Structure formats: C-alpha cells, structure tokens
C-alpha cells in the first residue's frame, strides 16, 4: 500500500486524469499548489511594473493505491504529465501505514480498493 504523489503542470492535469482513468486507478485527490522546480521564470508586466513569477502554478495529485496499482499510477502520472520541458514536475511514492474508509470502517487494502473493483 503506497501513497503516490504527483506534482504536474496545471495544463496537463486533465491528461493525467485521463491516463489514471485508463490505468483503472480510481480514488484521486488533487489540489492546486505553487512551487519551483528549476524551470525558467515567467516574466509579466503590469502598467510598467515588471515581475518575475518565481513560483509556478502546479497541480498535486495524491493517489493511495494497493501494491498492484503502484506502477500503473506512477506510469499514468509520467505519461500524462510529460511535455519534455523543464517544469514537468515530480512523482513521489511513499509507504502508507494505515488507511480507513470512513463510510464502512474498511481498513488498509480494503480501504484503498475502489468499490466494485
């Protein structure tokens, strides 16, 4: 049981969702975050005030999966999120100690396996 965290470009978020869906991975959380991963700064100008956008908008996916789905989830994040330019993001996989499905009280593998799967 692992928590797969993927940080990707916002404009690729839909591609990642599609890829996860195709890989049969269900149960996803995503949040909008800001960060910096070494990409070139974007320059914007407002009425003569020039600013460097040091932090770029990113989307953070969190997917808790049972062991057989770890590779599928990582693969989907990489496939859906890649453009080839600096700033495509990262995928982190961390071990998961416990999981509980609130509705039923299912724990661990049972909790991260989608209903009906």
């Amino acid at each position, binding site marked *: 049981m692992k928590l797969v965290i993927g940080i990707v470009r916002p404009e690729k978020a839909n591609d990642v969702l599609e890829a996860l869906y195709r890989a049969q991975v269900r149960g996803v959380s995503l949040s909008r975050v800001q960060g910096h991963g070494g990409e070139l700064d974007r320059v914007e100008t407002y009425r003569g005030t020039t600013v460097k956008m040091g*932090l770029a908008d990113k989307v953070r996916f969190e997917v808790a999966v049972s062991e057989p789905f770890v590779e599928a989830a990582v693969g989907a994040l990489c496939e859906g999120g890649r453009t080839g330019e600096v700033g495509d993001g990262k995928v982190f996989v961390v071990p998961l100690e416990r999981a509980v499905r609130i509705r039923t009280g299912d724990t661990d593998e049972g909790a991260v396996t989608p209903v009906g799967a």
Partner: protein
Amino acid sequence: MDITLLAQAAKIDTGDTAWMLGATALVLMMTPALGLFYAGLVRSKNTLNTFMMCIAAIAIAAITWAAIGYSFAFGDANEIIGGFDYAFLSDVTLAPKDDESTIPHLLFFAFQGTFCIITVALISGAVVERMRFGAFLLFAALWSVLVYAVLAHWAFGPGWLFNGGTLDFAGGVAVEMASGFGALAAALVVGARKDYGRQALLPHNAVYSLLGAGLLWFGWFGFNGGSGFGTGVNSVLAFTNTLLCPAAALVAWFVMDLIRGRTVTAVGAATAIIVGCVLITPAGGFISPGWAILLGVAGALPCYAVIAFRPRTRVDETLDVLAAHGIAGFTGILFIGFFAQKSWNALSDGLLYGNAEQLLDQVLAAVAAPAYAFAATFILLKVIGLVMPLRTSEREEALGMDVVQHGEEAYATGEGAILVVPEGELEGERPVADVA
C-alpha cells in the same frame, strides 16, 4: 465659416444631433460590454485575451473605418462597393450628408463607425482561446474593410439591396448576418480548440456574461434607437421594440430551458438577451410593438435549436456567434417581410398586409448576405493563413492565451512574484516600509 451659420444653412436639427451624439456613445460602449460577455464564457486562463480582442476591434476598426471603410460603405461609386469619395474623411464635414439628413455628416460617420467596431468584435467569438493575437489584428483590419463595409454598402448605403427595397433598420445584414456567418467560416478555417470534444470547456464566470449582456442591451437602445438618425417616429418605435423583443426572448428562453433541463439558467438568460436584441435589430423601426413581442418568442426557437445542436458537431464555433447573431439576424430580416406595417413605419407593408414583394426583397438579403459573409471571410482567413500562422501551438494553448499572448493574467495573485527593478533605479530611496 461660423458653426451656427453652417448649421442654419444645412438645416441641422439640434434635437436629432443631441440624441445621435448620445446614441453613438451608447453603441461604442457595447463593444467593451461584449468583451465582458465573451470573457465570462471562456476559461479563466483566456479571460484577458478574449476581452482584448474586443478592445482591439475598437482600435483597428475605428482607424480602418476613417481611412477607407466609411468610403466603401457610404460612397456612391456603384451598387456593389462605395469607392473612394470619402476616403480619409475627405468631404466628411459638419454639414449634413444629404438633403434628408438633419445631423452633421461627421456625426453620421462616427455613429456608423461604432457599428463597424462591434461587428468586428462579434466575430472574435468564433476563434477565442486559440487564435494568435497578431493574426487577429490583421484579420480585423482587412475584414472591417472587405466584408463589413461592403455589406454595409449593400444594406445601408446606396447599394443594391437598399436600392432594391430591402428593409434593414439597424444592421441585420451588415452587423448580424455578416458576423454570424463570417464566424462560422472563421471557426472552420482556424479549426477547433485542441481540447474541443474531449474535455468540458465551461464558462468561468457567468456573472461577467450577465453583466455584459445587460450592458449590451442598454447600449442597444442607442444602436436601434439611433438607427432612425434622429428623434423621429421610427426611432421611438425601434427604441420601444428594443425593450419588448428581448424581454419576450428571455421569457421564451426560460420556458425552453425549463423544458430541456428543468432549470432556468443564467448563461442561457445572458444569451437570450443578446438573441432578443439581435432579432429586433433589422425589424426595430418597421414592425408594431405587438409583432416585436411575437418576434422575440418565435425567433428564440431557431437560435435555441442551433445553440443546442452546434456543440454536437465538430465545428468549434466557440461562443455561438452563428446562432446568436447569424440565425437571429436572418430570422429578423425575414420577419420584416411578413409583418412590416406601413401604418407604423410609413414605408412599406409586409406579406401579412398584402405586399408580397417585400418578402421577396427580404429573402434576397437573407440569401446574399450570409453567402458573401461566409465566402469572403473564408477566403480572407485562408490568405492570412498563408502569410502567418493563425493559431498558437498546442502547448501555448494549454498554458492559456493570457500568459502567452499578453504576458499578464486576469487573476494574478502576486504570490511568488518577484519585482524586477531596472538596474540603477530606486538606489538609495527605498520605500519607508522596507527600512523598518
């Protein structure tokens, strides 16, 4: 010559002139209002670009109109195109244009110019979220002269539709059908957005759209009410019809929304206001207020149908200019052929009042204007496409046109933004807050 002398000599009417000054300003306001309406309908990352296309239409079309557009539209060379008589405002003076006019020629020019501007802005709705800004600027300049001015000559100026007896009060031909069917051509040439048909592309702020539609309606009182070029009975009739017809269209839209989706929608209401205003545009000064209400209800049907059907096709005519303007303008033009009433307009009756010939004149306009607008726009964009790319790369489209085309964002938070201080500036005079 002294201005008062000039006015007396040419029978300028102060009341007419006062109203037309106000009406001109009202119509100009419609273009930023349209920008607001359109901006609400696109995704947040394209807000500024969408709005800027409308602002660009003001910049470009006002200048091309002064340079050559007005002359092509209202010059008297032949019945197809106006020639160069008024090019660069030559002979456009403070005296009236002709014996029937009671306002300065220069004011007539400005009023007509605002129509050209909004028409160019309207067509941008077909290509938002992917067309390059530079390509749009060139397109706007050429389209305003080669398409708008020509159709304005046909229907308003001494062109063949006008001379043949076609009734078009405020622009069913040159504004509504030109932008609507031109938009269809533009959507076909530029092509669909990359996510079209794959993802749900939703309006990001329906409040903008409702406010924009409301301001458009407000401006439309100048658009239709000013198209009688004075304070005469046709102007008053058109003004009142501009109140009634969109209201009727709104009611009809509510009912259709209820039947189709069991709720009355806000984006639908904003669209209905536009549709109602467009429907009454050609017919405003020619039909009775009662028939204007019927036009609002009956005309809403085909527009609603096209808006419901279009997203099921591959044609990404993004903001439905064809449905809201092309189809509505077409319907309004034909409606005159049936319901025009000499007792109200002092010009001509429609079929219902025994004059079948008027319907024939209207059909002619309803066929010729869409055909020319579609073909000319199609060819024009194909030619521009040979000179420069019409749209941005897929990656830039994904990033959003605001950042890519303008280097700005509509909803910049400032978080993570680092001020770039030009070298050598601000030395030794740092803001007080920083010192502490």
